[in-house]
């Protein structure tokens, strides 16, 4: 039974009672974690996410202007995180350890009307933490990566060079000048390059990169 979760909720409201009941039902699959981990900056959206399954969580976070992450292990929700920022979510070292083998989903607020796919940082995060699956929801799209063992064998010191090697090639293949691309390209250009990069990277490292409709 989870303990001590009431500190994360405002008291006295109907929502608080529901959330506390829901959280009490959550048994953490992780040794040493007695309760669902939530950000100190948790807000009403975070409270709404408690005990929601993956799809329902994604439908809740996709329209938010700040980033939220919800994490599941063996089908059980283990973490809800937000940092109150539109482009980042923060994790402590202890939380990072708990992510091995987990399914991690987060939202990418749309930019200039574009659904935003994974960033290179997302892929590095999946590698470093040993995630079973990383997902990003943006607009109407769910982006997913389920890395294979080949992916985790990339030497740490070579990871960025390899990923950037794939990216540089896609920039050129799409007809953009690699020297001016970062400075001159709009969001749609950058999204096309990221998508092509992950697609090409997938052919070699079997990350099972997919896109589906939310």
């Amino acid at each position, binding site marked *: 039974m989870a303990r001590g979760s009431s500190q994360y909720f405002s008291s006295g409201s109907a929502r608080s009672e529901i959330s506390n009941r829901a959280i009490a039902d959550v048994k953490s699959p992780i040794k040493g974690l007695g309760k669902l981990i939530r950000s100190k900056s948790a807000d009403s959206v975070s409270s709404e996410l408690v005990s929601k399954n993956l799809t329902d969580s994604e439908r809740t976070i996709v329209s938010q202007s700040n980033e939220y*992450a919800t994490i599941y292990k063996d089908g059980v929700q283990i973490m809800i995180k937000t*940092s109150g920022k539109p*482009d*980042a*979510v*923060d*994790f*402590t*070292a202890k939380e*990072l*350890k708990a992510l091995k083998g987990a399914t991690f989903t*987060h939202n*990418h607020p749309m*930019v*200039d009307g574009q659904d*935003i796919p994974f*960033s*290179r*940082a*997302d892929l590095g*995060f999946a590698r*470093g*933490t040993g995630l079973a699956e990383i997902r990003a929801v943006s607009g109407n799209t769910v982006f997913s990566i389920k890395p294979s063992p*080949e992916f985790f*064998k*990339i*030497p740490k010191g*070579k990871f960025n060079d*390899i990923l950037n*090697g794939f990216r540089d*090639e896609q*920039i*050129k*293949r*799409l*007809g*953009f*000048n*690699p020297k*001016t*691309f*970062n400075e*001159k*390209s*709009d*969001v*749609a*250009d*950058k*999204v096309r390059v*990221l998508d092509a990069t992950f697609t090409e990277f997938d052919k*070699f*490292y079997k990350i099972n990169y997919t896109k589906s409709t939310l």
Partner: protein
Amino acid sequence: MKIPKENQNEKGEYSLKDDEGLKGSPKKSAPKDYQYTKKDEEEYQAFLDKIKKEIKKGLK
């Protein structure tokens, strides 16, 4: 997981930050005037050959 300095926030925690520079990007698409050359193709092939070798080595 040791947190690399470039990924740390002000508290020393890991910050999963979307660092693609999407916000503040120009509103106009970049010109598509780059001519993909034979040399580019050869360089990419060499890059892929190296990767294939690394993967093979890793699977042993």
